[in-house]
């Protein structure tokens, strides 16, 4: 414990960042353990009772002790829906980041290490992708996917389509970062040394370059996790993301939005608060990591 405390002191993490980290961590834990923590399963339609619909939260005069945060228009427990919604948002966010990282890193390493025409081709494709707004590209991809694979219309497939759609746009950032870092590392003597030793490119890239550029990749990934979850929420809010039967936070906000002005504002508000604080916490941690690992800014820290 003492060792842990001194390690914390030596890192000099600001209290605000630490609080954000703890909050994001706790929410993630709750989301992971959702089936054990949530009072109800919001995806099990047979467990709802329309008679329970639109009950106010307990602290707003709601009279049903079963529903702490009240219910939505279907009689679904809002607390459970938010926990499961956060879980879906996190899964899609993490999945999209993982997909984008793998794709972006692979292409960025190839472009940065080999250069020449293959670099030009990859980076021009990246430029084209970047000239599409994220939402438009995601709409396009989910539309095409649903047209091509009828099975993809099933709600179980929705997260995978979303991961693909968001990742297809986001890999460009990774590719650009990784390409630049790879070019810097390739010019250093330790890479030239292993080239003289005669190691094949594959081994040089994976054993020597990748470990040295991972710090910058991880920072981009953390910052991107927030934007990926935000994109997912936006798509779900627009109705092209998660279906109402498998609601993410964005879907819940959309459902709540319809009742917003009939006095039942809590259906939209609590998922929105959860989403905003999750994104904020992730951003705070991500920004701190970025400053921490950016050698140009490190002097000031």
């Amino acid at each position, binding site marked *: 414990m003492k060792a842990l405390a001194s390690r914390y002191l030596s890192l000099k993490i600001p209290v605000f960042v630490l609080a954000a980290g703890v909050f994001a961590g706790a929410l993630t834990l709750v989301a992971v353990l959702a089936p054990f923590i949530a009072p109800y399963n919001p995806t099990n339609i047979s467990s709802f009772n329309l008679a329970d619909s639109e009950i106010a939260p307990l602290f707003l005069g709601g009279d049903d002790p079963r529903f702490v945060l009240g219910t939505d228009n279907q009689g679904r427990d809002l607390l459970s829906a938010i926990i499961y919604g956060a879980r879906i948002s996190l899964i899609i966010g993490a999945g999209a980041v993982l997909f984008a990282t793998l794709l972006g890193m692979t292409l960025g390493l190839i472009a940065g290490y080999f250069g020449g025409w293959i670099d030009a081709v990859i980076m021009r494709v990246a430029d084209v992708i970047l000239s599409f707004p994220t939402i438009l590209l995601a709409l396009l991809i989910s539309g095409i996917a649903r047209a091509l694979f009828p099975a993809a219309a099933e709600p179980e497939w929705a997260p995978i389509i979303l991961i693909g759609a968001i990742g297809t746009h986001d890999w460009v950032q990774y590719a650009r970062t990784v390409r630049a870092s790879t070019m810097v590392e390739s010019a250093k003597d330790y890479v030239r040394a292993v080239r*003289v030793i005669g190691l094949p490119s594959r081994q040089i890239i994976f054993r020597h370059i990748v470990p040295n550029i991972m710090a910058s990749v991880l920072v981009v990934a953390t910052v991107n996790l927030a934007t990926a979850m935000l994109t997912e929420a936006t798509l779900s809010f627009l109705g092209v993301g998660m279906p109402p039967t498998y609601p993410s936070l964005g879907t819940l906000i959309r459902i709540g939005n319809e009742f917003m002005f009939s006095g039942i504002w809590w259906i939209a508000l609590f998922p929105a608060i959860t989403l905003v604080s999750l994104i904020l916490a992730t951003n705070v941690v991500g920004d701190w990591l970025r400053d921490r690992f950016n050698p140009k800014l490190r002097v000031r820290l």
Partner: protein
Amino acid sequence: MTMPPVLSIDGLRVDYPLADGNNFCAVDDVSLSIQPGEIHALVGESGAGKSTVGNAIAGLIDPPGRITSGTILIAGKPLGGKGSDGIRLGRDIGVIFQDPMTSLNPLFTVGSQIVETVSYHLRESARASKESAIELLRTVEMPEPERRFSCYPHQLSGGQRQRVVIAAALSCNPKLLVADEPTTALDVSVQAQILSLIKRLADERQLGVLLVTHNMAAVAQIADRVSIMRSGRLLESGPVSRVLRAPQHDYARNLIQAVPRIEAPLRRLPVLSEKDDVGTSIQTILETRLGRREAAGSDALLTVSGLTVDYTTRNWLRGGHVHRALDGASFSIRRGEIFGVVGESGSGKSTLANVIAGLVRPTSGTITFDGRPLGANRDRDARRAVQMIFQDPYSSLNARMPVGEAIAEPIRFYHLASSRADSLSRARTLLEAVGLSGDMGERFPFAFSGGQRQRISIARALAAEPSLLICDEPTSSLDVSVQARVLNLLKDLRDTAGQTLLFISHDLAVVRQMCDRVAVMHAGCIVELADCETIFTSPKHSYTRHLMSCVPSMPISDCPPTHKKNASA
């Protein structure tokens, strides 16, 4: 002289607080004084605290470090002070830093950077300060000062940039000039010019100069007095002629002896202390474990003929520009010899190393290695046979790989060991062979000093069991004493294991100590190639003679060497 000394330091101590609550004492009880017109050299190895003294005088100690005791007086007054007669950095103290590339702002013309200082401190009008700036550029012997005034830093050479920095430092007629390694980043001939410029300015302007340097030869050339520092303390101080010839302190004596001499080659270079030089034990390991690979002889191991490298820069508007980095180089390296290549920066010597190592594709010309042509696309054997060590020991090792792993990597790749365990044990042997202990293999590069890292680089290159080892400026970023040890190791490799070396350096004294034959390069061409002895005793080409004349010579010390073994060797 009745004038007060331009600088007097008394009992200076600088502390840096450490994370564990203790202090690291960078400078401890340093006292010295400089008279007007005197050049006082402060020498020592890296970490000795000599730059910290320079920074303390200029008030440039980075927090959290601070001056904990002692006084610094400039012309009898402390730095700072109230009113117009207080001592100001830039007006009363001029500072020159090591790297002329980074000490000028690339976005402003050099003239405007001098004008800025002049108009700020002396409150001169724009026209007057421009005139004084041009006058200053003339003073520092800048060719065509009117034209250079409106040049940007990147349009000037390294030497010209350093002249601009000196001009800016002198712009307000300071009493004291602090020069922190002013010539380290420069070529020999430029170095000689800058040193004589500093000497002339000190004489003409009655300027006191504190010359912080690790270069003993520079000290011998221009300084009046010298102080030798070690671990933050001043060991010895006195007139240059006395200290360099007959140093009193053991460390000072060893430090001065470790400087490679250009006058005559020694079999082994003297090192700082007995325990640092593994000497004979290394030789035994090299001989018994690595074995004698190549029989020395007169037949050529590597023959290069008509090697030319062009670098083409493409510009859409102005078309391609071709720069010929290497122009028709031809020579051959014999088995078991140390072949030296010497030249100034831009002479093409590193390009030559890169072409032979296979990192750069030649535009034309052929390389024959061991009777077979050696192109850019090489088979496994050819790649293994040519290995290289690099100049900067800090960037030439992968920071995220344990050093033992880095050494074992080529062993595994070329199947030189039967198993993973065997490859690691060979890595241990190699670490021992270069004078480190075998169990250091589990550590990461940051745990090692520059000299140790360079030994690790050598071990990694040897792991592939090369026939030819290319050394590209292997010791130019190392301290003198460390340099001596690394050079001795390379000598041992040749003497006991028969290793053939291609040794590239800009340091003529090091080349003299190391090489059997030497090629002198200038502007991409080999201008002279002969036995080392011949090159240094009777150089034929005018450029070679010019290079030799630029090397500042060290006085031969009168005192006997401290190690009897080295003396008899």
